[in-house]
C-alpha cells in the first residue's frame, strides 16, 4: 500500500489536466500573440482558463494574470506593489510565519530602503488584529499575509484583517498568499477586500510552473517582467498556454466538487488527529475541524527526529514532510512557524506534516496510523543517547 500524504508539497496532476496540456502542446500549439487561426485557437484556452478562475473567486477575468507559480505571484505582488506605491510611503507589514517566497522579497525590499513590520503569532499560529492595527502607520502601503499556514494549517483572520486595513486607510494594498488555501477554503477577494491574491497550480492537481495573481483592477502594480507586452503589459513573456489551460482545468475540477472535497478532507483530518491521539506521546499542532485548514495535520513525535521518521515511513511507501518541504534542505531544517509558536526543542525536532488531497482515502490514513504505531516504539528505542 502507498500513502502520499504530502499534498501541501505538491499533488498528482489530474488525467484531464494532462490531456489538455498535451492537446495544447501537440495540436493547438499556437502562440496567442500570432494573428492567424492557430494563435486565435490558443488564445481561447487562455480565455477559458481565466473565466473559470475568475468565477471561482467571483472577480472579473481581467483581474487574473497567469504566472509561473506561487513564488512569482508573491514576488510580483510585493515588489510590484511596493514600487508602484513608494511615493505614498515606505512601510510594509507582514507576519513572522510567512513562506520564504514572501519573507525573502520582504528582505530584499528592506535592503532597498523599505521598512517592514513582522507581526508575531500566538501558540496556534494566529496573528492578533490588535497587533495589526497598532502596526499600521501613516506611510504603510502594503499588508501581506498568508491565509493558511503551509506548515501547521492555521487559518489567519484574513477577512477581519481586510476590513481593519481598509478602515484605517483604503489606499493600503492587501496581499494574501492563498497558495495553501485556494480550493480548500472559500475566498472572495471583493468581499474580503483583498487587492492581490497569490495561487499556485501544482497544489491543486495542476501542472508545476503554473499559478496566477489576482490583481484588483483599481490597484497600481508595477510589472516584474518587461518584454513583449503580453497579459495587458503586466506580465510579458510568451503565454504558457499548456500551463494556463492545465491550471484552468484543475480549477474547474476542484470547484466542481468543492463542498464534497471539504467534507471529505475534514473527515480525513479528524480521523488522523483522533488516531494520533491514541498513540503514545504525540503532540498535535493543528486545530480540529474548521478552525484549521481541512487538509493539514502537523504533529510532533518527541524522541524521534522528524527526518528519521520521514525516511522510516518512506520505507513503507508513506510520504510526508518534516516541517515545510521547501525549507527541509537547509542546514538547520527548523521551520519558522514552529519556532514562532514557541515549541520546545524536542517538539521542534520531531514535527511531521501530513497533508491530504481530495483523493486521499481513509485507508491511507489508517495505514499511516498503523505504521506509526508500529514504528514509533522501535525508533524511540534507538534514539541518540
Amino acid at each position, binding site marked *: 500500500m502507498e500513502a502520499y500524504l504530502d499534498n501541501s508539497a505538491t499533488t498528482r496532476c489530474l488525467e484531464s489536466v494532462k490531456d489538455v496540456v498535451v492537446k495544447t502542446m501537440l495540436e493547438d500549439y499556437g502562440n496567442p500573440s500570432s494573428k492567424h487561426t492557430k494563435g486565435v485557437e490558443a488564445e481561447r484556452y487562455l480565455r477559458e482558463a481565466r473565466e473559470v478562475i475568475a468565477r471561482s473567486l467571483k472577480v472579473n477575468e481581467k483581474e487574473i494574470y497567469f504566472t509561473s507559480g506561487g513564488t512569482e505571484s508573491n514576488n510580483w505582488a510585493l515588489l510590484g506593489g511596493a514600487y508602484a506605491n513608494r511615493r505614498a510611503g515606505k512601510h510594509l507589514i507582514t507576519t513572522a510565519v510567512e513562506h520564504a517566497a514572501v519573507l525573502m522579497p520582504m528582505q530584499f525590499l528592506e535592503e532597498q530602503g523599505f521598512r517592514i513590520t513582522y507581526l508575531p503569532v500566538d501558540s496556534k499560529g494566529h496573528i492578533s488584529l490588535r497587533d495589526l492595527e497598532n502596526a499600521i502607520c501613516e506611510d504603510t502601503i502594503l499588508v501581506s499575509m498568508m491565509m493558511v499556514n503551509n506548515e501547521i494549517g492555521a487559518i489567519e483572520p484574513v477577512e477581519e484583517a481586510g476590513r481593519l486595513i481598509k478602515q484605517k486607510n483604503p489606499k493600503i494594498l492587501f496581499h494574501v498568499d492563498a497558495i495553501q488555501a485556494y480550493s480548500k477554503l472559500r475566498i472572495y477577494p471583493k468581499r474580503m477586500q483583498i487587492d492581490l491574491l497569490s495561487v499556485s497550480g501544482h497544489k491543486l492537481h495542476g501542472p508545476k510552473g503554473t499559478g496566477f495573481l489576482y490583481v484588483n483592477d483599481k490597484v497600481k502594480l508595477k510589472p516584474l517582467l518587461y518584454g513583449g507586452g503580453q497579459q495587458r503589459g503586466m506580465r510579458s513573456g510568451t503565454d504558457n498556454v499548456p500551463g494556463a489551460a492545465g491550471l484552468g482545468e484543475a480549477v474547474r475540477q476542484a470547484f466542481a466538487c468543492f463542498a464534497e472535497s471539504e467534507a471529505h478532507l475534514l473527515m480525513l483530518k479528524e480521523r488522523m488527529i483522533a488516531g494520533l491521539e491514541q498513540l503514545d506521546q504525540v503532540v498535535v499542532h493543528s486545530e480540529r475541524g474548521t478552525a484549521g485548514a481541512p487538509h493539514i495535520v502537523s504533529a510532533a513525535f518527541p524522541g524521534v527526529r522528524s527526518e528519521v521518521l520521514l525516511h522510516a515511513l518512506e520505507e513503507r511507501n508513506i510520504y510526508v514532510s518534516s516541517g515545510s518541504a521547501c525549507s527541509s534542505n537547509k542546514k538547520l531544517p527548523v521551520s519558522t512557524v514552529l519556532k514562532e509558536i514557541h515549541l520546545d526543542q524536542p517538539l521542534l525536532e520531531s514535527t511531521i506534516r501530513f497533508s491530504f488531497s481530495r483523493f486521499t482515502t481513509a485507508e491511507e490514513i489508517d495505514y499511516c496510523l498503523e505504521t506509526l504505531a508500529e514504528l514509533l516504539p522501535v525508533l524511540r528505542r*534507538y534514539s541518540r543517547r
Partner: protein
Amino acid sequence: MYKTLLIKYGEIAIKGKNRHLFEDALVRQIRHALKSCDGEFTVYKEQGRIFIDCGDGYDYEEAVAALQHVFGIVGICPVMQAEDQGIDVLAADAVRFLGVSYQLEHQTFKVVTRRANKRYPMESMEISAYLGEKILEAYPQLSVDVHDPEILLHVELRESGKIFLYSKVIPGPGGMPVGTNGKAMLLLSGGIDSPVAGYMICKRGVKLDATYFHAPPYTSERAKQKVIDLAKKLTPYAGPINLHVVNFTDIQLYIYEKCPHDELTIIMRRYMMRIAEHFAKETKSLALVTGESIGQVASQTMQSLAATNAVCTMPVYRPLIGFDKQEIIDVSEKIDTYETSILPYEDCCTIFVAKHPVTKPNLHIIEASEKKLSEKIDELVRTAIETTETIWVE
C-alpha cells in the same frame, strides 16, 4: 591557431623497461578523456613524446581542461604548426606566435631549435640565432637570456618537413596514469575527506572502486545520491568507479544495542573495514583507502586508527594522514568535490555518535566488547554483503 598539443610527462619517462606500459596507459587515458570533447583527436607516441593532433572545430579550452584531469601529464604545450617556406617565413611565424602567446613587455627569451629534418639547410644553432635576431627586431623591448629565460621558444623541424613552434606549458595534474598501479577500494562517505583521499591515490596511477555505507531510515536517499555524485566527480580523474552501497542499519543498531555507547563509532568502523575488505578481495583490489587524518576526530586518534586497522589484513592507505583540515579542503575545492561534500545530509557515522566517544580505545577492551555481538553479527554481516547494491559510476 593550435593544431597540435604536445604532452609532457615526467616520472614515467624514467621507468626503464616498463616505460612503454606507462606510455601506453597514458595514451589510453588521454583518448578516454578526449572522448567527451568536441572534435576529432589523433593521439600518438613519437620519439619519447606524446602528441595530440586536433581536428578542425575542436574546442581548445575544453580539450585542455579534460587533459588537466589526466594523471601522468605534467604539462600541455599548445603547438603552432608551420610549413617550411624558408627561414624568413619561419621568423615571421615565430614573431607572430610570441605576440599572440604572451603579453610582451620586458621579458627575457631564448630560442631552442631541434632539427630532426636533416635536409634543412641551416644548423640548429644558426636557426636559433637567426630567429632570435628577428624577434628582437620585432620586439626591441625583449632581451636574450640563454641561461634562465622567462620565455622559451621551441622550434622543431620535423622529419615530415612540418615545423612546430611551442612555448607555453600549461600545467597538468602530474602523477602517474591511472591503471598502471593496480586497484584499491576507497571507503567513500559523504564527507570532504574521502573523495580527496581517492583523488590522491588515483594520482599515483591506482584505479578505484568504492564502498559506501548507508543506514536507512537514518540516512536518506539524498545522502546516497550525494555519494554517487561525489564518485562521479572523481571519474574524470579515476575513470569509471564501481560503487558498492552497503545497507549498514541492522549492524549499526545491533552494535548500539549490545556494546558500550562510547565505543560505538570504533566498533562500527571496524565492521566497515571488514566489509570493505571483503569487497576489495572479491574485486581484486590490493589495498583499502580511507580519508582519515591523525587526530581529526575521536575515531582518528592514533589509538583509534590502530584499533580500526587491527581488523584489516590488507594494507590500508590513508593519503591524508598528515593533512590539516584546511589543506584537505583546498584539494577538495581544486577537484570540485567540496560543494557536494558540504550538503547537509546526515551520514551513518554521525547518527548515533556518543557525546563523549572514546579517544584512546584499548584494543583488548574493544575486542571484548565485540564478543557481545557474537550471537548475530556474522549473519548480519553476511546479509549486508549479500544485499549490497553495486552501482557503476562513470
